[in-house]
Each structure stands twice: as C-alpha cells, then as structure tokens.
C-alpha cells in the first residue's frame, strides 16, 4: 500500500514564526501536492511538484513556499505564520495521471 506520512499531526505556533510541515511518500511517485482544507471551502491546492527541485504554484500559494530536495520528501514552509493560516494541511502524492494518495493531515493552529 502507498504510504504518505506527515510527521506532525498537531502543531501550535505563534504569529510570525517560521513553520515547516514535512511529508514523505514511499512509492517513488513523481508528483507531490500540498492542499489546505477549510470548512465549506473544500480542498485548495497550495503547491505541487512533478519532480525533484521542480514546483508549481497552485490556487493559493501566497504566504507559502515549498521544497523538494529528494523525490520522496516534500516540505511546506510558512515563512511567517499568520492566524489566517490556521487550517488542516494535507499532503498527497501520485504517479503521473494515476490515483492521488493522501496523508493523515496536519492540524496547524497559529495564535
């Protein structure tokens, strides 16, 4: 089975802090994604990556950056966390056009 692991399930950070959300997949997938999920808004794509060191902006990239130095790892970075970034963050991976697999999610609260 595909395994997408988000190392931090619950985080509480202060406004202005730099936040790292880490994601690792074990299936050699080319594509990796970061989504944000908020009530009533569904899933919104922040960034995706289709290869090492490659990234593309999604629908809501403002305030976020990403890093993909190794194929299996995709990190989401909040350079200066703000309260409006309190949300659930979902990492996912897929093999080209095939099925997308999700991690368990990371709940981030910014106070």
């Amino acid at each position: 089975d595909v395994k997408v692991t988000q190392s931090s399930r619950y985080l509480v950070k202060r406004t202005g802090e730099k936040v790292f959300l880490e994601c690792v997949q074990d299936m050699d997938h080319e594509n990796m994604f970061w989504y944000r999920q908020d009530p009533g808004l569904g899933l919104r794509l922040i960034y995706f990556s289709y290869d090492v060191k490659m990234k593309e902006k999604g629908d809501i990239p403002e305030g976020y950056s990403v890093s993909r130095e190794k194929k299996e790892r995709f990190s989401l970075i909040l350079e200066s966390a703000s309260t409006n970034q309190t949300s659930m963050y979902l990492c996912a991976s897929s093999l080209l056009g095939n099925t997308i697999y999700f991690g368990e999610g990371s709940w981030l609260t910014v106070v």
Partner: protein
Amino acid sequence: AQSVTQPDIHITVSEGASLELRCNYSYGATPYLFWYVQSPGQGLQLLLKYFSGDTLVQGIKGFEAEFKRSQSSFNLRKPSVHWSDAAEYFCAVGALGAGNQFYFGTGTSLTVIP
C-alpha cells in the same frame, strides 16, 4: 475550465437506507474520476476510481459509482448505509499531463441516523 460540483452540501439518511451522492464535472477531455471518503480528523481515503472501460465501478466498503458521459456525472451509490459510513465524501477529477492536477468538489457531509 475544469471543475467538480457536488450539489449536496449535507445529506442525512437512515441506517439501512440507500444512498446516492451526486457529482458533476466539467472537463475538456476524458477524465479520470475518483471518490474519496474522509473521517473526522483524518486524511482522504480512496473509495473507487474510473479510468476507462465499464462505466459502473465497484469500490471498497460496498460503494459503487456510475460514469455517465452524456450527463457529465459520476454519482456514488450504496444500497444499504451503515452508521460507520458517516463521513465527508469528495468527488475528484484528474488528468494525465503536465502538472497532473486534480480537481476536487467541496464535499458532501453524510449523517446516518439510527
């Protein structure tokens, strides 16, 4: 533009009753279609998918979905709902190509009453 619409924000059904969750999509080419389920506080789990072939696909947990190209729909069904089916359900469309993006509906929340 690609989009996925789930017209029902919330549905309540009695345990043992049948269920149909609606999904309509807008996509320029032949889509890959998916249904995912999300339990509270968890990630999304794949229920079933359609790539090609038989338009009626079977998934896990007794769910099935039917692809109707003429109606641009991919509705999810279950003949008899169990209390454990209470969750959020997401329909998605994906495509092979540069970027390989997926588009998700806003979800349907299912409540099951005894």
